C-alpha cells in the first residue's frame, strides 16, 4: 500500500494551531487565529494597504470625507457590492455591524470604545444618510486619522444584517450563529467549522474585491509542531505555521519546500514593576538603565532563535507609522556594572522574573539570567503558565516579567495608550502595572491621538518612544518575524504585520 501524499490541486491545506479560537463572530473575535480568519471572510469600510499598511485603502467604502467638525466621517459605499449570500451592502449593514459590536461589549469592543462609543450612546453616532451614504461620528477627543484606523480594525468588519438578524436568538445579535458561520463579503465564506479540528473556507464568487483564485482553503488544527513539519515536508499540507527554529532549520534545503519571513507587529519586552514594595531597587532608574545593557540582543535574535526575532528596541514595531527604529543598546556588561556601582548598587540586585513556561520565552529568560548575572543582577526565573503571569500582573504582584505585545489595531495609539499613558487606574494599562507615574508623558500621548495631521502625530510618537526607550521601566528588545514554511508550488500568499493581514485570496498552487 502506498499512501498518497499531496494535497488536492484546488484546495490549499494550512496546518496550524486553531485551539485559541473561541468565536468567529467579527464582533467577538479577539484571538490570533479567529482574527486571521475573519480577515478573509469579512470586509471593512477601509483597510490598510497590503504592502504599505500605513496607507488606508477603500474596501466597502468607495470614498470618504472628513466632517467639518473633525469628529465625523461621511462614507460612500462601493456601488454594486454584495455579501456572499447575495444581499447588497447597504448603510443599514454598516450601522448594524458597528452597533452590534459595541453593544455586545465583548473583549474585541475595546478597540471601538477608543472612539468613546459605548452600548448606551452608539445609536447617536451611526447614521444612514441615504441609500449609499453613512455618517460615522464619535464623542472622544480623537482625530479622524485615528478614527479611520479604528474603522480599519477587524472588529469593524461589516456583516450582512439581513442574514444575521434571521439567526438572532435571545437577543444575542446573532453572536451564537456567527461564532461558527459567516455573513460577510470577503473573498471566502465559512463552509464548515469544527472546533479544535478544522475550518473549511470556500471561495466567494461575489466578493467585491474579486473572487479568490483557489476554490477552497482548509485550515487544519495540528497542535504538535513536529507533526506540522512532517505534513508540509511530505506534501499533505501546503503551508505550515508556527514551527520552531529547530524545525525550520531541519527543513532548510529540503526539496519542494521554502521558508518565507515577514516582520510581525509582536514585540517582546521586559517590564520592571516599580510599585512592588518587596523590591524597592526596581524604582531605581539605574536598574532600568543597567538592564538595557545586559541583554544579548544579537545572540538571542540570531543564534538562539535563528532569525525568528529581530532586534528592536522601541515601543512601536517597525512598519508602524512613527516607529522609532534606532537600536542604541547592546550587551555591555562593564557598562551595566558601572551604572549599578554609581547608583550604590554595586553589591548586586536580585529580581524575580515571571516568564511563560514555554519556548521561546523561557529560552530568552535563561539567556538573560546568564548575562544579567555577569552584570550583578541575579534574575530568579519563575516559569509560569501565561494566564497566571497575566493574573499576577493585573494585581501588580510581579517584580518583573518577560512578555510580548501585539497592538489591537494598526495605529500607534493602541500601544502608546498602554505603555506611555497612566492617567487612570486601569489593570489593563501596562504603565499602571509597572507603577510608572507619568503625567507629562500621558498628556503627550493624549495630544498625539488627538492630532489631525499625520506628520504631527508621527513626530509626537517619536518623542514618546524616545522617552520610553531611554528612561522607563520597560526594556523593548525584539520584534517577531512571522515565519511560514510552504510547498514550492504555492504562490501568491502575502502576510502583513498584524495577525489580520494574512492574505489568501491571490494564492495559487
Amino acid at each position, binding site marked *: *500500500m*502506498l*499512501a*498518497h*501524499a499531496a*494535497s*488536492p490541486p484546488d*484546495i490549499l*491545506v494550512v496546518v496550524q494551531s486553531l*485551539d485559541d479560537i*473561541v*468565536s468567529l463572530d467579527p464582533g467577538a473575535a*479577539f*484571538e490570533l487565529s479567529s482574527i486571521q480568519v475573519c480577515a478573509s471572510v469579512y470586509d471593512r469600510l477601509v483597510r490598510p494597504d497590503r504592502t504599505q499598511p500605513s496607507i488606508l485603502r477603500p474596501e466597502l467604502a468607495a470614498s470618504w470625507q472628513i466632517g467639518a467638525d473633525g469628529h465625523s466621517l461621511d462614507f460612500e459605499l462601493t456601488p454594486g457590492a454584495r455579501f456572499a449570500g447575495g444581499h447588497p451592502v447597504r448603510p443599514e449593514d454598516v450601522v448594524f455591524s458597528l452597533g452590534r459590536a459595541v453593544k455586545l*461589549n465583548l*473583549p474585541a469592543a*475595546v478597540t471601538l470604545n477608543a472612539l468613546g462609543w459605548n452600548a448606551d450612546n452608539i445609536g447617536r453616532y451611526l447614521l444612514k444618510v441615504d441609500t449609499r451614504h453613512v455618517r460615522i461620528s464619535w464623542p472622544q477627543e480623537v482625530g479622524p486619522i485615528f478614527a479611520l484606523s479604528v474603522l480599519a480594525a477587524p472588529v469593524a468588519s461589516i456583516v450582512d444584517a439581513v442574514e444575521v438578524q434571521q439567526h438572532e436568538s435571545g437577543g444575542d445579535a446573532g453572536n*451564537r450563529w456567527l*461564532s*461558527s458561520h459567516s455573513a460577510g463579503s470577503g473573498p471566502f465564506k465559512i*463552509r*464548515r467549522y*469544527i*472546533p*479544535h*479540528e*478544522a475550518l*473549511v473556507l470556500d471561495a466567494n464568487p461575489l466578493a467585491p474585491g474579486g473572487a479568490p483564485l483557489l476554490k477552497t482553503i*482548509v485550515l*487544519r*488544527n*495540528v*497542535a*504538535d509542531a*513536529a*507533526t506540522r513539519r*512532517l*505534513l508540509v*515536508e*511530505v506534501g*499533505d499540507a501546503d503551508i505550515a505555521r508556527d514551527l520552531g527554529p529547530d524545525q525550520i532549520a531541519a527543513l532548510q534545503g529540503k526539496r519542494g519546500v521554502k521558508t518565507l519571513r515577514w516582520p510581525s507587529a509582536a514585540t517582546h519586552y521586559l517590564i520592571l514593576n516599580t510599585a512592588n514594595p518587596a523590591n524597592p531597587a526596581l524604582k531605581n532608574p539605574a536598574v532600568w538603565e543597567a538592564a538595557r545593557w545586559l541583554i544579548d540582543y544579537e545572540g538571542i535574535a540570531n543564534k538562539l532563535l535563528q532569525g525568528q526575532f529581530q532586534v528592536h528596541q522601541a515601543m512601536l514595531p517597525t512598519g508602524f507609522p512613527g516607529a522609532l527604529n534606532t537600536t542604541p543598546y547592546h550587551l555591555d556588561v562593564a557598562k551595566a556594572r558601572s551604572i549599578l556601582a554609581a547608583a550604590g548598587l554595586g553589591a548586586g540586585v536580585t529580581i524575580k522574573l515571571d516568564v511563560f513556561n514555554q519556548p521561546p520565552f523561557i529560552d530568552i529568560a535563561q539567556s538573560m539570567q546568564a548575562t544579567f548575572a555577569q552584570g550583578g543582577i541575579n534574575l530568579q526565573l519563575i516559569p*509560569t*503558565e501565561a*494566564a*497566571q503571569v*497575566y*493574573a499576577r500582573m*493585573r494585581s501588580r504582584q510581579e517584580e518583573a516579567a518577560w512578555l510580548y505585545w501585539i497592538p*489591537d489595531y494598526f495605529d500607534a495609539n493602541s500601544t502608546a495608550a*498602554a505603555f506611555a499613558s497612566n492617567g487612570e*487606574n*486601569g*489593570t*489593563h494599562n501596562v504603565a499602571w502595572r509597572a507603577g510608572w507615574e507619568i503625567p507629562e508623558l500621558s498628556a503627550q500621548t493624549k495630544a498625539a491621538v488627538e492630532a489631525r495631521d499625520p506628520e504631527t502625530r508621527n513626530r509626537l510618537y517619536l518623542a514618546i518612544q524616545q522617552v520610553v526607550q531611554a528612561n522607563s521601566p520597560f526594556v523593548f528588545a525584539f520584534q517577531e518575524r512571522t515565519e511560514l514554511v510552504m510547498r514550492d508550488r504555492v504562490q501568491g500568499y502575502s502576510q502583513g504585520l498584524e495577525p489580520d493581514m494574512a492574505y489568501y485570496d491571490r494564492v495559487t498552487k
Partner: protein
Amino acid sequence: MAYVRAIATLALTLVGLLLVTFSFSALSPVDPALQLVGDHASKASYEKARHDLGLDQPWPVQFERYVVRLAHGDLGTSRSTGQPVSDDLKRVFPATFELATLSMIVAALVGVGLGVLAAWRPSGALDSVIRILSLVGNSVPVFWLGLLALMLFYARLQWVGGPGRLDDAYEYTIDMPTGLVLVDAWRSGVQGALGSAIAHLVLPVLVLASNAVGQVTRLTRAAMIGEAGKEYVTLARAKGAGEARILVSHILPNITGVLVIVLALTYASLLEGAVLTETVFAWPGLGRYLTTALFAGDTPAILGGTLLIGCCFVFINRLADLLARTLDPRIR
C-alpha cells in the same frame, strides 16, 4: 434491589468524581475570566466576565448550580469552543472510542497470544524475548514512538496515511453522522474514502496499542503460569496431552475471568489515556478536547469530559464483572 443499589452506587461515584474534578478546577491557577476576555481587557470587562461566569460566587454555590443544571440534562457551554458541551462530546467521543476500541482489539489479540507463548516455556528463550518486548512496549513513551513511526512509515516510506482521520480530498467533504471514520467512510460510498480511513488509522491504533500490549502480555503470562501448577494441568499432562493443547484448551479457559478484568481495565485506560496519541496524530478525540479545556480553564468542558469518562469506566467495569461471572463459575 440489586439494580437500585447499582444505580445508587453509580450516582454516588459520579457525584464524587464531579466534586473532586470541580475542586481541582477551582484550585487551578488558570483564571477562566481572564482567558475569556484577554489580557488587554479593562477591569470592568474582566469583572463582568467573572460575574457572567458565576465566578464571583463561592465555589460550593457554583458547584450546586452546575449539578442542578446537570440534573436537567444541561452540561453547559464550553468556553473554549463556544458550543454546548454535549455537542462537543458527541463530536469528539466517537473518534476516541474508535481509536481505543481498535487498539484494544489489537492489544487483546497480540497481548494474549504473546502471554500464552511466553507461558509455554517460562524462563526460556522465547519467554525472555517476549518479556523484554513487553517491557519495552510498556516503557517507550507514546509521544516519541508516535513521532518516530510517523517519520518512518508516513514521511519516509509513505506506507500509511499521515496525521488526521482522512486524506484532505475526503476529509470535511464526506458526512460523518456516526463520527466513526470507518463506518462513515464506508457508508459514504465515495471511492477511496474507506481506504484512506484505514491508512490513517493504522499507525495511531498500533502506537496506542503498543503500550497496552505489554501490559496484557505480562498479566496473561503471569495468570497462565499461576494456573500451570494446578492439579488438573498435571493430570492432563499425565494423560499425555500436548503442551499446546494444555495451554489453549485447559489453562486459557480457566483464566478468562482474569483476562476479562485485565482487558476491561486496559480498555478503560485507553479511552481516557489517548491524549498523547491524539496530539501527535492530530486525532480530534476526547483526550485532545480535555487537554485544550484544561489549559483554557474551561470548567464546563472539563467536567463534561470527566463525567463521560467516569460513566465509561463504571460501565466497562460493571460489564467486565458480569462477563467474568458468566465465563467463570468459580466467582459467581
